[in-house]
């Protein structure tokens, strides 16, 4: 029959028991030969694992790693360029359209809201004359009055 404390041995070794359980375990180890033997065997096992020599990385380890990093960076640049070509045409189209609208608006806005020329300013100052513009413009009717009157008589 296994001792109920046996399952605590590992957690006790690793300092993962609550303080109360750790105290109980320490007391138990002092009296239970079976658990004490297992505790010592497992502690020895840990020491054996920790005594394994540390591996030295090979000479090419770092070089190979940085080569892999460089390859990845290069691939990433290519992928970005490919993505730009895949998706970028929409951006280019939208940009061109926006530029066209901007140029169109600025050109035609200038045409519709251009400033008055000096001649127009003089005319504007003589608005009272301009108000008579239609009358003055129709003066030629008066000048050609005889011709018009002649046409009426013949008809």
């Amino acid at each position: 029959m296994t001792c109920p404390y046996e399952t605590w041995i590992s957690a006790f070794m690793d300092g993962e028991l609550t303080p109360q359980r750790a105290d109980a375990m320490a007391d138990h180890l002092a009296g239970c030969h079976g658990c004490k033997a297992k505790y010592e065997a497992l502690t020895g096992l840990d020491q054996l694992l920790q005594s394994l020599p540390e591996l030295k990385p090979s000479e090419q380890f770092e070089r190979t790693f940085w080569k892999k990093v460089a390859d990845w960076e290069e691939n990433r640049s290519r992928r970005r360029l490919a993505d730009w070509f895949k998706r970028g045409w929409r951006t280019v189209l939208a940009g061109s359209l926006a530029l066209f609208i901007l140029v169109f608006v600025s050109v035609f806005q200038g045409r519709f809201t251009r400033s008055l020329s000096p001649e127009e300013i003089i005319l504007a100052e003589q608005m009272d004359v301009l108000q008579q513009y239609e009358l003055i413009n129709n003066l030629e009717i008066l000048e050609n009055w005889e011709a018009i009157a002649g046409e009426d008589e013949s008809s």
Partner: protein
Amino acid sequence: MLAFQAGNLGAFQALFAKYQKKIIQFCHRFCGDQAMAEELAQEVFLNIYRGAAGYRPKARFSTWLFQIAVNVCLNEMRKEKYRHRIDSMDASPETESGKPRIKELCDPAPDQNELLEQQEREMMIQKALMGLPEKQRLALSLRVLNGFSYQEIGTQIRCSESAVKTLIHRGRQHLKELLENLYAGGDKS
């Protein structure tokens, strides 16, 4: 890591220099082959390099680093070539480059017999470790060789703290039995 995340490559180089041996060692205890362990360690650091943007300092950096190492090791284990290498590991104590591993073990070189004994002992322990189920091996290595707490190991191998406790306890007992059997087998021959 936060400095590297902000674009400082020197910070990554410092992390790489600081942790490379530990990660190679961890991978080696998992797969049992130095060349493979170096490949896995490179994959771990590449993942760190590529995934820097996604790093959030929720826990210690080393906890996150070893969590990635666990994932890389488990992924590799699922590949067929890994199993092939395990089979060939028993065949020869030499590295893939063909040079005897013995030269890599100690510095300065002790007596030839001591070296052979040391090499044999290391092979026995490694063979016993390879006989453990993968999660027991990972949990034991993270605890005994890298000093992580049960809570941290739970995060790294994605299981509860009580499951980690069981894994480590069973792992130790299992490893003890495997080593006893291996030594008993060695003595008979």
